[in-house]
């Protein structure tokens, strides 16, 4: 039996879940169940965070990472969605790119880091490139699948009312009909982008990832956790903001 929960109940329950998580964590460290050298207690995070804020590291890391994230997300999403849409619409292009796609798809974003350094150097562009690559594939496949699942009868409708040309189909049918799928891809990309921020900054481009690496080399686990939580928070904020965009674009689905 699946009991239906109200929105309020779900929010309350998820808050309670977090409380149990952090409470259990704190208790485990205090009772010595988890050695404090291995895991910082949640209560010690506050001081670590304040230190980072007072030093200005926290704000700077967020700003740096945000710029990598935003640029990587922009390039990866736009290119991925665009090429995915075109592949879904143009069979010749789809067939031509099929081999190349299968070749490159399994390469993880992290594997591109050496090339990012070679091609772009230890700077924003290099980090942006790594993020863009991992976001690209998500959007490519989401857009491609969305176009392929457009009801073919809508193309007939478009032809019957004078919109049978390539651009007629693109703007009157493909873009609006695939919008839900494309939006789902963008949303997944928002999360994937934050995950790749760490990889993108591994090699020394300043940002949240780089700061985490520094802290972990000094075994400052509390600082590492502070940035982990920071990233979770940033993801939550971007996802929340994207919710408004999605609601606006997909009003008709409400």
């Amino acid at each position, binding site marked *: 039996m699946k009991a239906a929960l109200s929105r309020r109940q779900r929010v309350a329950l998820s808050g309670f879940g977090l409380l149990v998580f952090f409470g259990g964590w704190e208790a485990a460290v205090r009772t010595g169940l988890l050695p404090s050298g291995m895991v910082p207690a949640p209560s010690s995070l506050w001081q670590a965070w304040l230190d980072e804020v007072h030093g200005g590291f926290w704000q700077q890391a967020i700003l740096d990472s945000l710029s990598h994230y935003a640029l990587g997300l922009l390039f990866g999403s736009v290119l991925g969605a665009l090429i995915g849409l075109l592949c879904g619409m143009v069979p010749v292009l789809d067939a031509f790119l099929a081999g190349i796609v299968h070749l490159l798809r399994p390469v993880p974003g992290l594997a591109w880091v050496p090339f990012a350094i070679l091609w772009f150097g230890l700077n924003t562009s290099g980090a942006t490139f790594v993020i863009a690559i991992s976001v690209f594939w998500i959007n490519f496949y989401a857009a491609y699948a969305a176009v392929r699942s457009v009801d073919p009868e*809508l193309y007939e409708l478009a032809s*019957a*009312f*004078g919109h049978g040309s390539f651009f007629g189909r693109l703007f009157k049918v493909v873009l609006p009909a695939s919008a839900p799928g494309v939006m789902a891809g963008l949303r997944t990309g928002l999360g994937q982008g934050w995950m790749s921020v760490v990889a993108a900054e591994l090699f020394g481009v300043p940002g949240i990832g780089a700061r985490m690496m520094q802290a972990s080399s000094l075994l400052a686990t509390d600082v590492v956790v502070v940035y982990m939580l920071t990233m979770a928070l940033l993801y939550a904020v971007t996802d929340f903001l994207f919710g408004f965009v999605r609601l606006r674009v997909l009003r008709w689905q409400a």
Partner: protein
Amino acid sequence: MPLARLDDVGLSHDGGETFILRHVSLNLHKGEFVALLGPSGVGKSTLLRVLMGLSKPSEGSVTGPQDDVGAAEGRSAGKRRAQALVFQDARLMPWRSVLRNVAFGLEGLGLNRQEKRERALDALRLVGLEEAADRWPKRLSGGQRQRVGVARALTVDPDLLLMDEPFGALDPITRNSLQDELLRIWQQTHKTVLFVTHDIEEALKLATRIVVLSGSPAGITGELTIGAEQKTPDSPAFRMYAARLRAMIAGEPDPGGAPYWRSAEI
């Protein structure tokens, strides 16, 4: 001069030797309401799509009304479409409001925003759905969706209105009221209508002429002009015509040569 003309049209499956339609010739005259009657799956919709220009015939020729016919009738050329199609499944775009669904065919005709809105609203008024203009399609009932489909076709002011079993999926009560509404609109607008159906009673009720499509490959196996007396349900004339149409669909000889009730009267 007929408004639209099919001349010895044939259509084969994927350009091969298996024909769906063969030797179909049909003239449509201005102001007529023609029902294209035939069993399900015979190729009626295919014929409609050939006429609409959505499928190319393998043989024969198709002449449809041209887009500039309207110039002589007071409306400037290029702001209307020669033909419009009503689908069986309404086929509305879920991401467009009712009004914007109706305006779909008006886009690309060089109308400004206000003109498009007014013409779409006019069409919605004609089908009695003006107050639903800002609703989403999924909030409509089946009958309302079909009305929107009719409005979308009417708003481009076509010379030829092609309807592909538009009321086939509706419940009998809704179907009946939409049939009445269609007749009213037809009398009001004097459109030429080609109405595909597999329902003999529907064809008799609506059409001024019934063309029967049957066989495999499908061809025209009979044709009847319908007058007022054949339109009265359950009248002898209605029953006689229904019997003749059934025979035409089945490919049997026409039983209409000597109407039994007339020989009884003599």
